[in-house]
């Protein structure tokens, strides 16, 4: 028997990420921006403040595509997948969305979307993730490490997410999304439970920067009960005369 294998590198960040921040997007976070108005937009992807990619987005009612996923860690590959390679603009139907996510690496990404018709950068800015998720935006977290997570905003809204390992769960699928709504009065619901590898999507009715932290690790698989026998060496016989 001679088992061999072609090495496939483990995406370690998937299993080690414990903190998530909408202002610094990392692996397992997704920021969805919807393009409600037709027009030409300019998208900049930044990492640690430096621009790592720029692309145009053309939004029009006659474009067929309703959603494009842009991997900020590999934008060229994402553009190849959507058929808009190189300098070609991403074409999107009016009302369609781009899901910005990070597939690998340590993260620290931010994204800006600006309407090119606007006179200045500030008025034309449709999205600046470094400032938080705008009202109407959607921020999703895929939580992998089992445990308890606290989701919080700068406005002190809080929610709890319990993440359990899907041990002995028939029909477990990672592609299940639990939706939480962020309103002025906080998160609704305030507590949810999901299985490891599934996602929580936060629909923001108000603008917010959102942070999630693993506050209590789960031990993972339950400990196996083992019957243990203890052997004690008999004490040596006492010496005579003592």
């Amino acid at each position: 028997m001679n088992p061999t294998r072609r090495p496939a590198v483990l995406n370690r960040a998937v299993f080690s990420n414990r903190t998530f921040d909408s202002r610094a997007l990392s692996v397992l976070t997704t920021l969805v921006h919807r393009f409600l108005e037709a027009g030409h937009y300019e998208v900049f992807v930044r990492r640690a403040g430096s621009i790592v990619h720029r692309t145009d987005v053309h939004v029009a009612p006659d474009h067929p595509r309703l959603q494009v996923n842009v991997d900020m860690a590999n934008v060229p590959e994402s553009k190849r997948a959507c058929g808009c390679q190189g300098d070609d603009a991403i074409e999107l139907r009016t009302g369609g969305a781009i899901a910005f996510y990070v597939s690998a690496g340590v993260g620290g990404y931010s994204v800006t979307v600006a309407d090119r018709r606007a006179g200045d950068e500030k008025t034309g800015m449709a999205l600046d993730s470094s400032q938080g998720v705008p009202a109407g935006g959607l921020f999703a977290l895929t939580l992998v490490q089992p445990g308890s997570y606290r989701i919080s905003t700068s406005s002190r809204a809080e929610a709890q997410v319990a993440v359990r390992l899907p041990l002995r769960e028939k029909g477990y699928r990672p592609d299940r999304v639990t939706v939480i709504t962020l309103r002025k009065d906080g998160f609704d619901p305030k507590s949810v439970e999901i299985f490891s590898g599934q996602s929580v999507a936060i629909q923001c009715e108000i603008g917010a920067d959102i942070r999630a932290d693993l506050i209590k690790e789960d031990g993972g698989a339950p400990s196996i009960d083992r019957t243990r026998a203890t052997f004690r060496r008999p004490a040596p016989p006492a010496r005579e005369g003592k």
Partner: protein
Amino acid sequence: MAHLTVAASERAFKTMFDLLVASIGWEKSDSASFGPFTAGYHIKGHLEGGSVDLRADNTIQVKELDIKWDILQVSLGLNIPEICVGGGCINMPWPIPDICLPQVCVFDDNPDVEISLDLAQFVAQEVSFTGSLVARYYDASLPPPLIDPCDMLRDVLSNAGLIEPLPSHNQWHLFIDPETVDIDLFDFPDIVGDLIENALTNAIVAIIPGGWVRDLILAIIGGVADLIRFILDIPDEIDEWLSDLFNVSFGLFDFLVTLVLDIFGHCVPIHRIDDPFTILEEEVSTSVRLDGAPVTLVPVRVPILNLSVLVNDVEMIVQADAGA
């Protein structure tokens, strides 16, 4: 009436048959892609034992000739599908289009695992056949045929010293030409299925980190056993699937049938008779000529014509005419 008649008893024929069987061996390897998995084999085998029965109807029955596998190696390579977390769609109120979250994958590429097992000790096969003896003339002056099914086999066997190469002179070749061949199908026992499943499971588990990460990945792929069955498209038992792979997909059952037909019927004769046949070898006489040189007696060779061979239930009879 034939000029020459030679008979060999059934026992002598069995000795010739044993020598023939001892000279037979084969080796073959190949691999094929079946989409999500690749499978390959490397086989090396020979024949042993068997009983020979000369029958009154001019046929020979060979029974229970063992196919012995020196190597019966199967290799399986699995292309494990992407293992990803996340994804899924969010239903949005009409007319807002639904949002589907991207997935993030656990490995940078589809991991592949490969195992290789030698199953020679688990397979026992027998071949039996009935045929008649056929005499064919080998004319060394003729060019070899463009397509000779025996060419490669004969080279392999003669290079291994198992048979003599084709001679530079003419010969009569006697073959046992099989008419009906019965060969056991490849039939792997249950234990082989377990071995393969364990080897694949170990290979897959080895690429997955331990602890809760392994628990999660195994939950995503739905368990290793189910994943293996899904990738290999195994409806029932692995051993049955493997037997089918060898018999049908690899075509090794047909290979064995063709091998037996070719070896016995066309490639390796059970007996060779030189033409002309040497009755008396060249001999240096003890007599000397007047000049003192030794007298050399030239060999006596008889051309063999119209050679025919038949069997009855006690012996093999070869008849021929002596040419001028």
